[in-house]
């Protein structure tokens, strides 16, 4: 293959959502040289190995290769909805009419993406129109993944406070001429924190539910011990449904599992169900408990307060994130919210992607 053809091919892939730089083009040229004496399919396989970096790209590659050889001018972006930031930026660029030109990777990120990125990540989720939805979801996925993986690292570090066990340290030092080579600690290696998420999927939460589900999915991917529940009038365990790595797959399973989407809200009763069935198994001093709800409750506030107190006694931290809190002039005066406030460690907004990404701060803010 002629180098110029390869350059064209790489540009073609880039237009179709591949994240390629100049180095990749060089890699492809190098590969044609190494495969000089092999057949055409070997070149195709070699290009695929060199230019793909994920299963999604891998799956899309063969069709793109063929349509390039056939000379099809410009197929639409093919990559499926993934966590690939590359795809998100390609999409944003496409929306701004940047698609055809060859841009350095850094440029695409900062120049074209910035303002839309800003608008989408800071704006209230309920205000975002349908056109922006796809881009928003990709940005969300990326931010979530980043914030969540940082969070899991921070929590791991935070758990590392332990006391020296002098007796065992000295004892271990005897065999080494009194030098303390191995330090023994008093407590066992601390467990990683568990995370329990209660997600409100009642009618009033409609604009937010889908994104919050993505958020929960990102969290669950990162924390091995995450348990996610959805509730409106009753509680449903969606941990298993959220388990597939692929977000589209997971969301589909959740929608099958949750039968009472957009129903009324009975937070107190749902929590009671949780306390009765799962609390013993899931709650402990290393559990972080996260409620994502707007606090519009049709149940009895006293009941909610009572159940929240039970939870509070058992967990390390109780966090309530409320999408309404991001609105100007919102006061948590609904009866349920007012009843819940005394038991919360953190009460925080959840109206935008940026505010959700703050979860890290909330969970690490207090040493408890």
């Amino acid at each position, binding site marked *: 293959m002629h180098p110029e053809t390869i350059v064209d091919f790489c540009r073609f892939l880039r237009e179709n959502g591949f994240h390629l730089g100049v180095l990749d083009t060089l890699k492809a040229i190098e590969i044609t040289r190494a495969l000089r004496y092999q057949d055409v399919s*070997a070149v195709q396989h070699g290009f695929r190995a060199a230019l793909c970096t994920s*299963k999604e790209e891998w799956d899309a590659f063969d069709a793109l290769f063929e349509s390039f050889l056939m000379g099809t001018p410009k197929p639409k972006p093919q990559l499926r909805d993934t966590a690939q930031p590359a795809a998100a930026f390609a999409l944003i660029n496409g929306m701004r009419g940047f698609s055809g030109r060859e841009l350095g990777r850094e440029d695409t990120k900062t120049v074209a993406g910035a303002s839309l990125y800003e608008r989408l990540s800071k704006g209230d989720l309920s205000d975002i129109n349908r056109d922006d939805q796809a881009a928003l979801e990709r940005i969300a996925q990326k931010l979530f993944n980043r914030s969540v*993986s940082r969070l899991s690292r921070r929590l791991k570090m935070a758990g590392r406070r332990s006391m020296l066990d002098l007796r065992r340290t000295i004892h271990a030092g005897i065999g080494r001429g009194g030098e303390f080579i191995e330090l023994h600690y008093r407590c066992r290696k601390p467990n990683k924190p568990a995370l329990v998420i209660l997600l409100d999927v009642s009618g009033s939460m409609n604009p937010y539910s889908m994104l919050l589900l993505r958020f929960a999915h990102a969290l669950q991917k990162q924390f091995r011990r995450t348990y996610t529940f959805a509730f409106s009038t009753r509680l449903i365990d969606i941990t298993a449904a959220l388990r597939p790595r692929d977000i589209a797959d997971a969301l589909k399973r959740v929608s099958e599992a949750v039968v009472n989407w957009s129903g009324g809200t009975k937070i107190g009763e749902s929590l009671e169900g949780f306390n009765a069935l799962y609390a013993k198994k899931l709650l402990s001093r290393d559990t972080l408990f996260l409620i994502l709800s707007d606090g519009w409750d049709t149940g009895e506030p006293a009941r909610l307060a009572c159940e929240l107190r039970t939870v509070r006694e058992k967990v390390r931290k109780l966090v309530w994130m409320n999408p309404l809190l991001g609105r100007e002039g919102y006061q948590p005066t609904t009866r349920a919210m007012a009843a819940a406030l005394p038991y919360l460690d953190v009460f925080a907004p959840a109206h935008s992607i940026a505010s959700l990404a703050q979860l890290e701060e909330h969970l690490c803010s207090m040493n408890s």
Partner: protein
Amino acid sequence: MAKNPDQVTDLDAIVQGFHASGYVLDRALATSIYLLIRLGKPLLIEGHAGVGKTEVAKVLAALLNTELIRLQCYEGLDISAAVYEWNYQKQLLAIKLHDGTEGSSDERVRHIFGPEFLLERPLLRSISQSNPPVLLVDEVDRADEAFEAFLLELLSDFQISIPEMGSVKAVSRPYVVLTSNRTRELGDALKRRCLYHWIDYPTREKELEIVRTRLPFAEKELSEKAVGVVQKVRNMKLAKPPGIAETLDFVHALETLQTAHIDTAAVEQTLGCISKSAEDIAAIKNAGIENLLCS
């Protein structure tokens, strides 16, 4: 079947070499391996559990007649377990022995930070062999990002810096194979550096060929039926779909039980080979074993 890397001149040599070791591979994977040998680029292999990712490195080492150095990644893997560690006991001992003897302190420091006090871990070992080994970095997605960054540095410069000794340059470049189960998205920079290969579950025909190669004694009809069952189970969206090892176990078990023909009871008895979790086994039984058997 062992070969010198220079003798690997075309894809067929690789396909045949792997076949001889009992590994059935298609031309696409052969191309990736060919490029790994020719261009010396690391190969990142992703795929579901049990499709033979790790095996690629093992067979490659056998094919090239070289050592396989394996680094199993896990959460919290650090430099001292992956690259090098000083032999502290020996160092202390040396200090005590040399107490009171002549010699400047400079010399002594240089002595106790010499090569004889260095414990080589897989990564350092892999670049200090005269005959380039195959370095397998297994399940790299399990290690944390800090380690990934370090690995990236190693893969681009092929040198390791040890503060007390200076940097150690590679005597020879190892053939690097990385595997990942996609439990975490790997960093872009690391992926850029590598060739990428996705190994999917084998097709029916390929899986039959694998069974034939690995279990030559198995009856043809039995293997065909068993592979059919496994292929169907894979489509069932279980928590842990069966890999190739499970297929082989399954065929082997059926063969051992000497079932004249494979029926519902026989499958039920050996279901534990295909699936190792109670939930999945229940799901398979719910779906009806007789449905799996009909073709």
